[in-house]
Each structure stands twice: as structure tokens, then as C-alpha cells.
């Protein structure tokens, strides 16, 4: 068993187990911590695939900002004691049945179509000394070919920031 396979299965088990724990915990803070664990596993998967810039971005942005934001909001929104009684809505079993059917269908397609993923030439062999780093490759593409989506993303973040502030601030003279 190669190290690659072992690491993949380790990270996969961590991701899926943490995701299951995220959606089933009573305590919302525990759910957030399990989400962090799942996101760490995803960052590991990115590292396995040679996407080290994306792994860094994942840790800094997803774990370091988004989940911290979740924890802040959980802190600000008090959970009453009786709210801990019913976790799942009344459609739990219907949803589980539908999702199981959907999973079976997608797994069938994946298994059936696994050969069609042989797309053309295999991974090219890499000569020593010709590698550009992953960050450099992303930079080359992001600021030339994808410049417009990049600028639009910055405008999106500005709009989201304004929106979040407007939604959450206390209005003067409100009831």
C-alpha cells in the first residue's frame, strides 16, 4: 500500500466522519468544531493532489475566517435549553430515503462510467528544473485569463460585506 493511498483513505475517513458528526450533534458549537475537522481533511486532500496554494487558502479562509464567523454568531445567538430537544425535522426519514436512492444512482453511474475517465494522454512526465510552483501557475492564469472573474469576485466581496453589515446592524428608531 503506497503512502498516497494510505493518506487518501485517512483523509477521506476524517472528512466523512467529521461531516456526519457535524450534521448530527445537538450542541451547535460541537457541530462547528466537527466542521473544522472536516475542512482540515479537505485541505489534506488538496495537498495530496499538489494544490498547495489552495490548501493554504482553505486553511486561512475557510477554517480561519468562515468557521470563526460561525462561532461568533453561535456565541451571539443564545440557544435556549428546550431547543436542544428536537434536532431533526419531521421529514428525516423521507430525506434519508431520497438521498439513499440518489447515492445509489450516482454510485451506479460512477462505477459504470469509470472507464470513460481515461481522457486522452496520461499525466505528462516532468523533467527536473522545468517546474513552476503551484502558486505561480495559479497566478499566471488568474491575472491573465481570469482577470474579469477576479475583479468581479472582489466586487462580490465588497457587496457581501456591505450586505452583512446592513443586515446585522441595529436600526435606530426600530420597534
Amino acid at each position, binding site marked *: 500500500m503506497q503512502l*498516497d*493511498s494510505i493518506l487518501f483513505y485517512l483523509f477521506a475517513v476524517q*472528512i*466523512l466522519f467529521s461531516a456526519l458528526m*457535524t*450534521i448530527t450533534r445537538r450542541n*451547535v458549537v460541537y*457541530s*462547528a468544531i466537527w*466542521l473544522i475537522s472536516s*475542512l482540515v481533511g*479537505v485541505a489534506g*486532500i*488538496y495537498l*495530496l*493532489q*499538489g*494544490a498547495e*496554494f*489552495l490548501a493554504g*487558502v482553505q486553511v486561512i*479562509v*475557510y477554517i480561519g*475566517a468562515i468557521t470563526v*464567523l*460561525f462561532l461568533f*454568531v*453561535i456565541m451571539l*445567538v443564545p*440557544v435556549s435549553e428546550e*431547543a436542544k430537544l428536537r*434536532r*431533526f*425535522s419531521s*421529514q428525516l426519514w423521507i*430525506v*434519508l430515503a431520497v*438521498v439513499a436512492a440518489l*447515492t445509489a444512482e*450516482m*454510485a451506479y453511474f460512477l462505477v459504470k462510467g469509470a472507464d470513460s*475517465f481515461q481522457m486522452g494522454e496520461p*499525466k505528462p512526465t516532468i523533467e527536473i528544473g522545468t517546474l513552476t510552483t*503551484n502558486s505561480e*501557475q*495559479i497566478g499566471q*492564469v488568474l491575472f491573465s485569463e*481570469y482577470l474579469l*472573474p477576479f475583479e468581479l*469576485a472582489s466586487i*462580490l*466581496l465588497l*457587496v*457581501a*460585506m456591505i*450586505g*452583512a453589515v*446592513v*443586515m*446585522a446592524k441595529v436600526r435606530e428608531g426600530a420597534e
Partner: protein
Amino acid sequence: MPVTHYLVLSMALLMIGTVGVLTRRNIIVVLMSIELILNAVNINLVAFSDYLQNVNGQVFAIFVITDAAAEAAVGLGILIALFRNKETVHADEIDILRW
């Protein structure tokens, strides 16, 4: 690792996130399940980026992360505004618009 393994992982995470979005009553956990779904999509994108030796998938994944950050911020702002008016975080108790 053959790319199919990553696709199965992505699909499993997507399904777990979907169950979380559809069944949990607590809105914060619903938002967290949406983040799980977005991460499943990202795993898929990066798997194919690695398989095809093309960096475009990772650039797409960066934009998905950007989008997820913006959506989490606005969603939590809405949650705070909602909680200020209704004093509950449970999705099925928010039924003002129900006919």
C-alpha cells in the same frame, strides 16, 4: 489514486451535506451543511484539475471559496436579523410567510 476515488468522496460529502441541509432544524447547522456541499464541489474540481494537469480547476475552486465566504457572511447577517425579530433559530418555527 484514480480520479474515481476522489469523485466518490466528493459525492459522499455532497450527500451528507444535503441531508444536513434538508433535515436539521437549527439554521446554523443548515448553513454549515451548505459549506460541506461547497467543499464537496471543490474536491471534485481539484481532483479533475490534478488529473488533467490543468490549473483551471483550482482557480475555479478559489472562486468557489470566495463565494462561500461571501454567502456565509450574508447568511449569518440574515440569521442575526431574523433572530432579533423572532427569537428562535429553528427553521420550522419561522412560518410567517406560510399560507
